[in-house]
């Protein structure tokens, strides 16, 4: 069909008209672009006003316009407005092109002639481009009501419960034998000092018993196919060697198990467990897992004590159990896989692992945990002597060019909590070596005050070294903390019995791979990138994938819970919509022209591109495609086309901008 284009130039009051000869531009377009299909060109005070829109709608109806160019403000402001206007007049909204002669011309230029000339060029570009526009229909896909939550820490628990309580099904996948995450390892929580277990375990139990929650611990997500609304998730349920149907979690098996194992995970190496075990008393689910690495039976074929003593009927120990592969349909996914603790051995001068009485924050958490190896007695490695003096080193691995530049946000409060607990339980002298104290949130500053009043020492300075080399008698048999006190500006050597390294938080070691699995990316420091740092912190660039808790960045419990709930709210919103409409800016492959060279196959971060070995051609899944156009630009055969930003459209716009097609007869370059 022949192009019938309407050009509408907006004055925007004086915003545009003040610098651009709007009338002149419109007349120019009507005259010099006539042969390019411009049948009408108008200028109007405010195109975006209802009157302005009516103007366009009227022309579409009466002049039978099949394309519209609006020269006004940025499309980010009013593209929707004018597309809607076109739609109202029965014209496909994507037949409308906006030219930003306000943000890009009148507001940034002063020379009227130059500005007017540029406006003309840009309109010519818009006209040439719109000639190649084609009607597009948004893609709508149904939303499956079930949700996958990955990670059973406090954030994941919160999300799962919110959604389940709203009456929708949730699959909660946890890598460890029990949910609870890091929070379950803590003793007290700052600033209120209420016991972590007391507030966490009820939630864990709820999850374990919730009719809308399918809990899969000791399990990992292996594969994610599909797109927002209908993901197909494949989960590997690792063999527990325990029949969860019959097991009551009575505990006789781990009582009888002869094999002691140092628990490096939950107890952070401070305590032991058996070869068959539950990580901690309040574990959910309550049934144990058998640790093949250490089990005597799996080592040399004998023992089976657990099976022998199992009281249940049928016997709940199944030593031939194999991994299970489960697949499930979900509409949305929440990633709450948490964080790893910074490995303190990476800073050798702090002596962790070399100097016995240097502890990490997590070790200390277990140490002072009533349910921990020492029932909460704070002692040195010998497990009996209480320390008389303790140094707490802040920002270990955080705010440090050599390790992580970012602030882990929780360490300050954590350290203050430690300081309080040490003083409260041992009366020992406590030295906090800090860079800054960051006590930003509700009641935090007060807690800082409190610890100061309790007599904790605060030395503002980054600890240089921790050694056991005494220079003076007072240092004999002590750990010496070498630190510059920047407030008094001198070096200090502080002899102490115990040092606690307040280690920072790091992205999970496998964050990148997991991200690839779900089609989301990590930022520079390795935390998952949110859709918008302020306005959309729990969504990601991939539709239907949300993030909550520390995966998005270091944060404390309240913040994690808040994000867990927020992510849940976003998911519920989607479920309520029943279906989502996807932008019709999409890439697709012309199969006859595709040579199967596979250049494009590795280019899509959203896994939208797949290769068919049988036909030796590549295919793009329109629902997964986000429309960036990278593969379109990459295809060596020109076999991939992109809607909305096609080669033809861009090439034509270039010619237009260069005024190559301005009439009466085209001007040759």
């Amino acid at each position: 069909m022949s192009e019938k284009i309407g050009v509408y130039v907006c004055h925007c009051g004086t915003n545009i008209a003040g610098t651009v000869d709007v009338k002149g531009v419109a007349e120019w377009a009507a005259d010099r672009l006539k042969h390019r299909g411009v049948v009408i060109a108008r200028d109007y005070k405010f195109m975006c006003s209802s009157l302005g829109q009516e103007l366009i709608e009227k022309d579409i109806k009466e002049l039978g316009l099949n394309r519209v160019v609006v020269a006004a403000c940025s499309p980010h402001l009013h593209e929707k407005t004018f597309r809607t206007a076109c739609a109202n007049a029965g014209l496909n909204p994507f037949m409308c092109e906006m030219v930003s002669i306000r943000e890009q011309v009148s507001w940034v230029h002063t020379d009227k002639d130059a500005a007017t000339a540029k406006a003309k060029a840009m309109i010519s570009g818009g006209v040439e481009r719109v000639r190649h526009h084609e009607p597009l229909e948004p893609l709508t896909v149904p939303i499956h009501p079930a949700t996958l939550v990955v990670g059973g820490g406090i954030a994941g628990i919160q999300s799962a419960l919110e959604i389940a309580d709203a009456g929708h099904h949730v699959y909660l996948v946890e890598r460890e034998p029990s949910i609870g995450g890091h929070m379950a390892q803590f003793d007290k929580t700052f600033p209120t000092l209420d016991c972590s277990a007391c507030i966490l375990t009820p939630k864990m139990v709820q999850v374990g018993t919730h009719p809308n929650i399918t809990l899969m611990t000791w399990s990992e997500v292996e594969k994610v196919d599909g797109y927002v609304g209908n993901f197909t998730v494949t989960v590997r349920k690792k063999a527990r060697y325990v029949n969860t149907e019959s097991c009551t979690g009575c505990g006789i098996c781990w009582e009888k198990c002869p094999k002691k194992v140092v628990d490096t995970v939950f107890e952070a190496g401070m305590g032991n467990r058996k070869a068959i075990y539950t990580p901690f008393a309040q574990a959910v689910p309550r049934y144990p897992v058998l640790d093949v690495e250490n089990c005597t039976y799996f080592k040399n074929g004998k023992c089976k004590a657990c099976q022998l003593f199992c009281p249940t009927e049928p016997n709940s120990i199944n030593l031939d159990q194999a991994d299970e592969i489960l697949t499930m349909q979900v509409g949305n996914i929440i990633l709450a896989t948490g964080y790893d603790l910074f490995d303190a051995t990476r800073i050798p001068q702090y002596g962790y692992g070399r100097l016995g009485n240097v502890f990490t924050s997590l070790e200390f958490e277990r140490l002072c945990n009533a349910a921990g190896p020492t029932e909460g007695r704070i002692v040195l490695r010998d497990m009996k002597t209480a320390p008389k003096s303790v140094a707490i080193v802040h920002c270990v691995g955080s705010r440090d060019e050599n390790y992580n530049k970012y602030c882990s946000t929780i360490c300050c409060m954590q350290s203050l909590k430690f300081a309080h607990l040490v003083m409260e339980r041992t009366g020992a002298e406590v030295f906090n070596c800090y860079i800054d104290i960051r006590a930003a949130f509700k009641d935090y500053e007060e807690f800082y005050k409190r610890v100061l009043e309790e007599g904790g020492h605060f030395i503002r300075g980054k600890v240089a070294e921790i050694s056991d080399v005494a220079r003076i008698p007072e240092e004999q048999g002590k750990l010496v903390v070498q630190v510059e006190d920047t407030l008094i500006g001198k070096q200090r050597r502080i002899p102490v019995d115990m040092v606690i390294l307040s280690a920072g938080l790091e992205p999970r070691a496998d964050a990148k791979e997991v991200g690839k699995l779900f089609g989301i990316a990590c930022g520079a420091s390795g935390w998952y990138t949110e859709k918008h740092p302020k306005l959309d912190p729990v969504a990601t660039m991939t539709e239907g994938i949300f993030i909550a808790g520390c995966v998005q960045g270091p944060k404390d419990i309240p913040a994690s819970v808040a994000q867990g709930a927020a992510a849940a709210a976003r998911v519920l919103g989607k479920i309520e919509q029943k279906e989502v409409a996807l932008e019709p800016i999409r890439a697709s492959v012309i199969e006859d022209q595709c040579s199967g060279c596979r250049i494009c196959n590795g280019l899509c971060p959203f896994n939208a591109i797949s290769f068919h070995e049988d036909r030796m051609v590549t295919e793009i899944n329109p629902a997964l495609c986000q429309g960036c156009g990278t593969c379109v630009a990459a295809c060596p055969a020109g076999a991939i086309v992109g809607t909305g930003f096609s080669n033809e459209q861009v090439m034509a716009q270039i010619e237009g901008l260069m005024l190559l097609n301005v009439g009466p007869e085209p001007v040759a370059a």
Partner: protein
Amino acid sequence: MSDNPKPKFAMYWAASCGGCEIAVLNTHEKILDVDANFDVVFWPVAMDAKYKDVEAMEDGSILLTLFNGGMRNDENEHIARLLRKKSKILVAFGSCATEGCIPGLANLGDSREIVHTAFNTVTTENPHKLYPMTSYDVPEGEIRIPAILPILKTLEQVVDVDYYMPGCPPESHQIAAVIDLVIQVLQGKAQLPPKGSVIGAGDSTVCDECKRTRNIKSIKSFERIWAIAAEPTVCLLEQGIPCNGPATRSGCNARCPTAGAQCIGCYGPAQGVVDYGARLISSFASVIDSNDPTEIDRILDGLVDPVGQFYRFNLAGSLLKAGVPAWKKEKV
């Protein structure tokens, strides 16, 4: 062709190497078909005819002209215009006519340097710095030679072209197929493709016909063909050898990759592609396995001659047609 029952056929070479003629001769018996169905009025390599004969013909009286060779001098242009006038169907035949071919690389420089370099080689005895002149007075009188154009042009850059037949040279089996088609059209058994079509080639690219196995590509380094013992069954590009196959129009049965050599791109761009080199630049760069500028540079150093690599056959036919020196009118 009014008074003549058989339609007239012509084939001509401008600045070319003659390979296109050889390729046509290599269709062997097909030549006889041409002779049977056409009145061959003009074909320098094969038969006797004069320029004046052609000039004397009615406009449009030649049904089909296969034109090979590029526009290197003003004579080439002159004859292109003449044959356009005399021919109903003008086919740009072979790489030179369709996209400029190897001689198009001359467009990277100032055309005057062509002469300058040729007349200053190590063996050239040229103390007085003499260069060929379009007009020269010998004792007996003036003699002339044609003027070299500032840039070598493709046929369509000089005259309107009806069809394009790529290849350096076009494969004989493709030529035979086209001859068959034209004969069928003459017998009313087939339709001519739409004007402007590329004939005698596929719509996809060389990979489509290449038997080597392919995987997702990620290039850590580019290799020179002689520098490694290339694996004979795996995609050359995946082995770091810059093979132009992915961007080069199919139709040759992937001859070079099959023979262990990288595709050098003689069949030109694929269907609908505007700029051949751009496709290669974009695709090669896309699969470079690095996000670090310095490493990217290190990897790209492996491509010793990007322009030559990407525009070996296609420079004259590309969007930019030539390098900056060729555009400069005046020398300082």
